[in-house]
């Protein structure tokens, strides 16, 4: 049986304005449960701007539900469109040109707050953010007294474990994996933040997403051994925890980038710091960024401008052969002096 969903604002009478990671998500839905699930991000009435995208969610009570959305969600993209299927029937279309996300979901998914807050909203911002000047950056972010510490590095370098260790040493966790960067003046205005010096004008946002720790994190956080790692969207096996559960401190959702560290693991003992040039910062983030389609040149340019602004941050390469706890101690000490 074909499921045909004609989705427009006439059949989606409920509205909410969500402010998420500096983005304005104009939600329209036919389900109060979806509105309720996303209520933490609801900021009343927000005027449309260059940071707005539409999120149209139609809930069909007759749609079947995928029992495990993390292993049954499938993403593909072509040109300005990104598709996601969850199981067989639940479908999302992310239209980067029209700045609109359209989806049809089951009643079970509609009421699953964990699905929306911990997973689907971060995914949506990750896909749509670049088009509205909210640039996803593959780095962790911590905050101390309003100053942000961005922690980048290749996958497996230990960003998440070091983030947790830093959070246990007086920093507040903003994000452990993906941080969303907005820039004062925004991509749409073409203003150059580089003229402001440093990282002025940049804001780092987190989404209170679950912390993801690889199975070997049990070596550093023994309490994890009582848990079972789960399969994630990317096929990776990892522990999933609410940030407060593992850091034992409140999380923050926003900070101003002040330090930028590139983490490298070494076999040699010790922990040393070497400054990194703006060119190296730029190269790291440009060459590691998702390829964007040619039909979205303004989006690609906006991302490059944000990376340019980020390259003005003071940055260091951290080579550590120490435990996350010892490395965190060294980083915290270094930050106090810099």
């Amino acid at each position, binding site marked *: 049986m*074909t499921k045909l969903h004609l989705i427009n604002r006439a059949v989606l009478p409920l509205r909410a304005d969500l402010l998420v990671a500096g983005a304005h998500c104009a939600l329209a839905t036919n389900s109060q449960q979806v509105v309720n699930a996303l209520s933490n991000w609801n900021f009343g009435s927000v005027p449309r701007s260059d940071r707005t995208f539409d999120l149209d969610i139609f809930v069909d009570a007759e749609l079947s539900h995928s029992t495990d959305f993390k292993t049954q969600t499938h993403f593909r993209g*072509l040109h300005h469109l990104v598709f996601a299927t969850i199981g067989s029937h639940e479908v999302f279309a992310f239209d980067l040109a029209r700045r609109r996300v359209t989806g049809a979901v089951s009643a079970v998914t509609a009421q699953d707050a964990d699905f929306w807050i911990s997973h689907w909203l971060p995914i949506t911002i990750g896909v749509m953010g670049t088009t509205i000047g909210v640039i996803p950056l593959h780095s962790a972010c911590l905050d101390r007294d309003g100053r942000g510490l961005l922690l980048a590095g290749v996958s497996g370098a230990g960003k998440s474990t070091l983030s947790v260790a830093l959070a246990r040493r007086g920093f507040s966790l903003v994000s452990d994996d993906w941080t969303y960067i907005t820039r004062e003046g925004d991509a749409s205005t073409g203003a150059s933040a580089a003229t402001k010096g440093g990282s002025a004008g940049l804001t780092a946002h987190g989404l209170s997403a679950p912390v993801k720790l690889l199975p070997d994190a049990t070596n550093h956080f023994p309490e994890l051994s009582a848990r079972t790692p789960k399969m994630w969207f990317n096929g990776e096996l990892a522990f999933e925890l609410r940030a407060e559960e593992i850091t034992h401190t409140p999380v923050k959702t926003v900070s101003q980038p002040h330090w930028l560290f590139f983490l490298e693991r070494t076999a040699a003992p010790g922990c040393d710091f070497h400054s990194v040039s703006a060119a190296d910062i730029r190269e790291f983030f440009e060459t590691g960024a998702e390829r964007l389609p040619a039909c979205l040149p303004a989006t690609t340019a906006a991302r490059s401008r944000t990376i340019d602004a980020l390259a003005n941050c003071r940055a260091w390469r951290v080579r550590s052969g120490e435990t996350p706890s010892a490395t965190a101690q060294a980083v915290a000490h270094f930050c106090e002096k810099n």
Partner: protein
Amino acid sequence: MPTQDIAAYRDPLDLLHRFVPTPLNASFQLDCATIILQTNDLSFFPSTETAPEVPASSRVQNQPPPSCLWKIIRDVNVSQDLAEPSTIISDDLIVYSMGPACIIAADRTRRELLAFIGASVDARAYQLTILPTLYRLTEFVTRSAVAKVAYADRPPAAGDHCNA
């Protein structure tokens, strides 16, 4: 199997498979449009048996039909079978999905059909199930606003479920 010659695609900076090469190109005529096909699999080329005849009388005289891009990717990384269809229609965009094995988007503003077809979809399933959908969606993207309403309001097939 036509898909055996297509290597699995891996690019850590292209997790969505946007940049799968489509070196095979063709152009052919439907009654409503000139199709420009870009694909990575020869089995998606139309054959004389599957392409519909072009009834010249159905075209508006002296007006060449509009062009429409079909970009069809054989997604060898996907092994699932076709699921029941699910379609969302949102203004100028239709997304037709039969699970991961078949995702088709039709964008009327851009006159584009963009599709991923899984490895398990054989020639018969493609011709019987997917090709007719591509034809219908081509009508949607190439015809006037009336066509959009017609698509949405078309009598659903037996057993179809529609929220509209």
